[in-house]
């Protein structure tokens, strides 16, 4: 997904103010690991620096949103402080956590698996093998609480979303669209293709760490024969 921009590549990162409440740092305009690594490293550096007035940071594919308290700091002070963290961020050796997530691809738990196979002109077993072969990365959370966007879906499984969303799929649905994969945490309407179901609890409200993944984590899927509700 390449986006035409006026800014030359050498100008990254870009800093943009969002009214009086946030500063957006842009590291690029494509979804690729090298750019995302910079987002994650900057996020970690800002978290470690404990800059006054910073309320929370939100990493995504190629940008980092920094929410601040305008009474405690301002856009320019923050931009200066963050710019000085660039070297720290560059040096940061982040070792992402790896997770192995079980998936059941059995038909009852994979309502769209046959349709994906038909559209991509391959067998159901090939779709499963392709999905299992992917080396996934948590690019960001979005859409709903606990919905982690996993990049790394093999190009052979790249499909657009369905034109009309389906009302509700159960929690743990493993679904793909637009080169991304999500394991759902809440029953929400979706236009993505559900190809399996996982018993892994990604959203655990009672846990001291309520969200299993952090942005930047790596994921591999492991096939299981039957789905056992967590």
């Amino acid at each position, binding site marked *: *997904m*390449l*986006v*035409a*921009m*006026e800014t030359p590549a050498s100008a990254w990162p870009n800093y*943009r*103010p*969002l*009214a*009086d*409440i*946030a500063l*957006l740092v*842009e590291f690029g*305009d*494509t*979804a690729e690991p090298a750019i995302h690594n910079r987002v994650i490293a900057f996020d970690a550096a800002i978290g470690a620096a404990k800059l006054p007035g910073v*309320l*929370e*940071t*939100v*990493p*995504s*594919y*190629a*940008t*980092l*949103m920094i*929410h601040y308290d*305008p*009474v405690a700091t*301002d*856009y*320019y002070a923050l931009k200066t402080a963050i710019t000085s963290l660039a070297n720290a961020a560059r040096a940061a050796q982040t070792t992402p956590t790896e997770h192995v997530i079980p998936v059941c691809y059995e038909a009852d738990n994979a309502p769209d698996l046959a349709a994906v196979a038909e559209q991509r002109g391959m067998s159901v077993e090939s779709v499963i093998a392709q999905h299992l072969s992917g080396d996934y990365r948590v690019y*960001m*959370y*979005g*859409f*709903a*609480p*606990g*919905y*982690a*966007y996993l990049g790394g879906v093999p190009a052979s499984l790249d499909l657009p979303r369905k034109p009309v969303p389906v009302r509700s799929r159960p929690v743990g649905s493993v679904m793909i669209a637009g080169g991304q994969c999500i394991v759902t945490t*809440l029953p*929400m309407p979706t236009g993505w293709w559900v190809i399996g179901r996982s018993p892994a609890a990604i959203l655990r*409200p009672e846990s001291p760490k*309520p*969200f299993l993944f952090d*942005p930047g984590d790596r994921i591999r899927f492991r096939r299981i024969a039957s789905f056992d509700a967590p």
Partner: protein
Amino acid sequence: MNHVRLTAEQAGPLTTYQDRGRPGLMRFGVPLSGPVDRLALATANTALGNPPGATAIEVSGGGLTLAGGASPIDFALAGGDFTAAIDGNRIGSDIVATLPAGARLTIRDGSAGNWACLAIGGRIIAPAWLGSTATHALAGLGGGRISAGDTIIVEATPPRFDTPVPLPPPPSDDGPIRVVIGPQERFFDPEALEFLTTAPWRIGAAFDRMGIVLDGPPLVPTSLAMLSEPLVRGTFQVNGSGTATVLLADHQSTGGYPRIATVISADVDRLAQLRPGTPIRFTTIPATEAIAIARRRHTAIAAYLATVANPASFEDRLRGSNLIGGVVDAADPD
């Protein structure tokens, strides 16, 4: 503590429990939630001696009717021009009062505003999710929606307001809605950027806790080819058909539509309170000015809440001094 059980006899579809919300979790896809009108929550709670971010009931256009419990309770209503009546006798808007045991409290949407907060003296007991009772309406998480037949349980403080006391008018502003351009203004023609501030806009018919739709010129983006990225409250985004939406308390944490501008924090909640069809204008300001406005507003709100914290003396003050006018003036230089 005295537990009092109130019964919802009638509730509009957007009636929910809200507290200050759940900050710090947008990186996990969790919006802040909390009240659409943040000053209304702080005002209603402060008037009763509750912590400003305590759990209250957010009421929308559908109104709310509560049957009182076995003991009297204190309540405060703030936000918009919503009205309260006890057993059919209207006591006013922006008010603190005691609801006698067994009496009926009726909240209606009055002449202005889409959202109000009803706080109750003491502590409302509601389910928490990730440390907050705020309702995330789309997912139904948190305290949740209040429907007819539901019971509201309160650890009530002793009642103090046999005579209803009006709250002082909050700092207000009727000027244009101020925005800072960006961050995706490069996805729009110069003409669209001009329309933003020159066109006559109106509040559209559709709103909820996630956002408010605006009626105006189609600001069609020149491209939709952008990656999803984090959103903020006040984001002015435009979809592929040119429909403009300003994002509110329950907004999704990320999105992929171009964002032409961001409404400043001082103006987001008053925009959300304008009723469908209301004409509005936007004006652009630099980020530095937006920050200066936020600081002035912070000071004005602190002064206002300090006045609200002592409601027993409101009436005396209203009679005896121009302090209330002074508070309003403090927010006006913007």
